[in-house]
């Protein structure tokens, strides 16, 4: 039964119409996947309800979100049955991996699993563990996330690849926008900025560390304003902290800003700083660098990737206040704007790499195909048949 086009079932938290880094990543991913050679249709089943969805790209169909955990599983199973045949399953989040693994096993098709970050900072549950092992390929958003996954899971490291975030075209260099200079009264001042949710569950982002460093920064650069963009349940605590440190005058909380205003906020700033200890990747760093401002991030986590080990921005030990202060001062002292430094994270490279990964995935043996374990056991030198025979003759993607 040779069909010319493949159908992919994609289980994701959110994609089209969603907000935030993961939704963005999923959109980029699914769009590129839909354009891959021989992929005819990508069926997207999101878990969370999102905003309005504009016209979907050809080849992509997004089903209605199903929020409940059990109802989602049921919906996924129904989708798999009613939309048969499914040629492979893509799973966009580790939490959904056990469900995706079961589906791929029942359907007898390979599984492509994507992981993002904090979900692998601790040992995985037994079910997640098995799900990851059954994946034909795992893509991770950063080297650090990959490294952490491999700490816990017994899987051939060759099957775990890295596919970084990409950055949208609206983030680009430009002059400081007048209306924001006015709104925040920062004309003639140096602006430090952090953009993130202010959640008490995500204190690792490091707003505290920046606020505590501010007195030292202000000593030498009294004209500095620290702009905290984003909102959440941790905001009042940070406000009190700023008071406590005696820098309340120099810290402004913007609350959440509409997505379309975000590029302007980056352009308003001189330096983006987020000394986080637990980023999976940190797409905001790319947005800041694309806007041409200097960036400072933390070592020992996914931030090393957007900053390319320090080639594109400054990496500091987040727990070292002196290091952070001198990095901020050095960045503020440099008046030149850097221009867009994110050429290596542009969508075209992302798409090309996804194509190459897709070919690798297609040629992998085993994965979740039930015959895999017995095939492996017998294998010495003999080549193992391709996971899905219908793909054997496929050509490289465009």
């Amino acid at each position, binding site marked *: 039964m040779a069909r010319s086009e493949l159908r992919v079932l994609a289980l994701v938290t959110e994609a089209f119409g969603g907000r935030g880094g993961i939704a963005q990543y999923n959109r980029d991913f699914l769009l590129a996947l839909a354009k891959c050679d021989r992929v005819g249709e990508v069926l997207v089943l999101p878990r969370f309800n999102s905003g309005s969805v504009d016209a979907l790209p050809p080849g992509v169909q997004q089903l209605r979100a199903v929020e409940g955990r059990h109802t989602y599983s049921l919906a996924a199973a129904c989708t798999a049955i009613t939309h048969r045949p499914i040629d492979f399953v893509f799973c966009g989040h580790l939490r959904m991996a056990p469900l995706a693994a079961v589906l791929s096993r029942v359907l007898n098709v390979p599984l492509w699993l994507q992981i993002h970050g904090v979900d692998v900072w601790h040992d995985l549950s037994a079910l997640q563990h098995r799900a990851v092992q059954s994946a034909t390929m795992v893509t991770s958003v950063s*080297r650090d996330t990959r490294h952490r996954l*491999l700490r816990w899971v*017994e899987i051939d490291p*060759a099957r775990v*690849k890295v596919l970084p975030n990409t950055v949208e075209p609206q983030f680009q260099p430009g002059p400081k926008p007048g209306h924001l200079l006015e709104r925040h009264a920062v004309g003639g001042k140096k602006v430090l900025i952090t953009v993130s949710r202010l959640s008490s569950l995500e204190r690792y982002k490091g707003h505290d560390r920046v606020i505590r460093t501010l007195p030292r920064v202000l000593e030498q650069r009294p004209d500095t304003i620290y702009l905290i963009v984003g909102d959440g349940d941790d905001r009042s605590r940070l406000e009190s902290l700023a008071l406590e440190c005696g820098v309340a005058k120099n810290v402004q909380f913007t609350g959440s800003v509409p997505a379309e205003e975000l590029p302007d906020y980056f352009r308003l700033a001189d330096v983006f700083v987020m000394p986080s200890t637990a980023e999976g990747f940190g797409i905001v760093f790319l947005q800041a660098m694309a806007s041409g401002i200097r960036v400072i991030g933390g070592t020992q986590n996914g931030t090393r990737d957007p900053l390319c080990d320090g*080639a594109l921005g400054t990496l500091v030990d987040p727990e070292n206040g002196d290091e952070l202060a001198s990095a901020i001062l050095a960045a503020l002292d440099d008046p030149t704007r850097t221009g867009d430094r994110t050429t290596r994270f542009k969508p075209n490279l992302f798409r090309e*790499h996804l194509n190459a990964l897709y070919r690798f995935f297609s040629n992998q043996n085993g994965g979740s195909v039930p015959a895999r374990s017995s095939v492996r056991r017998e294998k*010495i030198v003999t080549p193992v048949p391709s996971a899905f025979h219908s793909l054997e003759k496929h050509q490289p993607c465009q």
Partner: protein
Amino acid sequence: MCGIAGIYAYHYAANAVDRGELRRIRDYMAARGPDGIGEWYSSDERVGFGHRRLTIIDLSERGAQPMVSADGKFVITFNGEIYNYRQLRASLEAKGCRFRTQTDTEVLLHLYAEKGEAMVDDLRGMFAFGLWDAEKSALLLARDPYGIKPLYYADDGWTVRFASQVKALLAGGKVSRDPEPAGWVGFCLFGSVPEPFTTYQEIRVLPAGSMLWVDRVGVHETKQYFSIADTYCQAEAARSPANEQDQQHSAREALLDSVRHHLVADVPVGAFLSSGIDSGALVGLMRDAGQREIQTVTVAFEEFRGRGEDEAPIAAEVASRYETRHTTRIVTEQEFRNDLPKILEAMDQPTIDGINTWFVSKAARELGLKVAISGLGGDELFGGYPSFREVPRCVRALAIPGNLPVLGDLTRWLLTTALPSSLNPKAAGLVKYGGSYAGAYFLRRGLFMPWELQTLLGGDTARLGLRRLKPVQHIATVLKPKPKTSFGRIATLESSIYMRNQLLRDTDWASMAHSLEVRVPLVDKKLLNQFASIAAKNGSQSKRVLANSPRVPLPPKVIKRPKTGFTTPIQSWLERDNRIQEWRRIPSLTADKCPWARRWAFQVSAGTAAA
């Protein structure tokens, strides 16, 4: 014979190759290659190779590496010796290939151009190389069938780095130092770190007899092109010479052929000599192969003078029979104490062995040798170890109780909780493991038992490491396909576990630290092919065949001498060394009968040995 290094920034987001890093990796291996250095970078700076050279074949500058093919399409950095390179060269020349040097390195480049990755099947020798194929934009890493030459790689998801030593990769400064629990657990269980693990999560061994491609997607699945188990299975199916005389004749021919090939060099080739059959017979065969001048070297200890353990007198007798230039090198406790920090520094991965090789290599280098022949591998090929008898016996006795579910764990639990701690920990594992070849072999070679690891390594490392390594299953994987004869099974286990992870690896670091190349004619793919069927039929009697092979026979003393293993006074030296006393903290290690290797292993794993 050299040190190799390389970096390939395969991912589109990765930084270009950092030349400083590559040089740090390369130059950490200065002792592996004191005679020359080289580097090469692709024009886009995405690939870089480094090389440290020990000149042995074609001593001229033309033999320098990394070597680029005449058409610029292929680049290689190579460590090892291809013993059949002259034959390969002749057939390539017949096909029209033109050579610029006399090296085996250039043969590899032409052979790859001719055959692609299938080239590895044609190679006889020891090798580890990285080959850049500019047409494919891909890197090929390959390692010899037995894993004589080491090759480690680290893939962080953007960039892959490789080198001949783990510590060299770390010296580059960009590879994670996060520990690999499976490596540490493996070390404590076996006394050496089992392939493909190292003690670092990010660094892996390219397994023996395997190759690996890296392209812009990253590292592909390792492909195994040679299997010892498979060779024994095929030999068992084939017919071997029927009568003893024919067997002896064909064995002699095969051995002589291997020795002859292992003498290929543009510098003198010496030999390590002990009082055993293996090294003595090899020296006799070196004579038969036509080598006139042979420098032999034996290590001896003042403490053993006049005692049965002293190998020096018998070795000297062998040397005089084969008219070699012979040196007995005395090692004293003082020298050992002085060298210990250097030994631990040179020890690339934790191990409980290698110190003997350190001193004999040191002695050979002092004599001006660059290459020495060693009898390593004889016990694996000819069934010299007691395991060839004991493991099958154990499996026969325990096959039934060992297969009863729960019984093994139950007896283990009973024995470890109810009986005093002075009980040999292996006794407790007898029922649990003794019923299968892999399990019984694990008992035989095991240093610690899994339930002892928590005390040594801590709960998390022990738990994660055991989960990943699965020691008995790990052993069982080398027995696929499973040879029919017990000899074939044990020979496969000994060659694929103990010899590979312990003997060969220790020989590599301990000899290379002295810039000495050790060659092992008894560890040879072709010899195994020819010999496996004879060995499978003759079982443990086959060592006789080796002893009878030199035209001038070995002295009868050598043949009749009971197998003792190589004993040294090193244990008592270590025991007296106040730098090495950490083990006294662990109750189970202070028992009188506790083997020294267990204490030493703990010492090494505690990382305090160097202090």
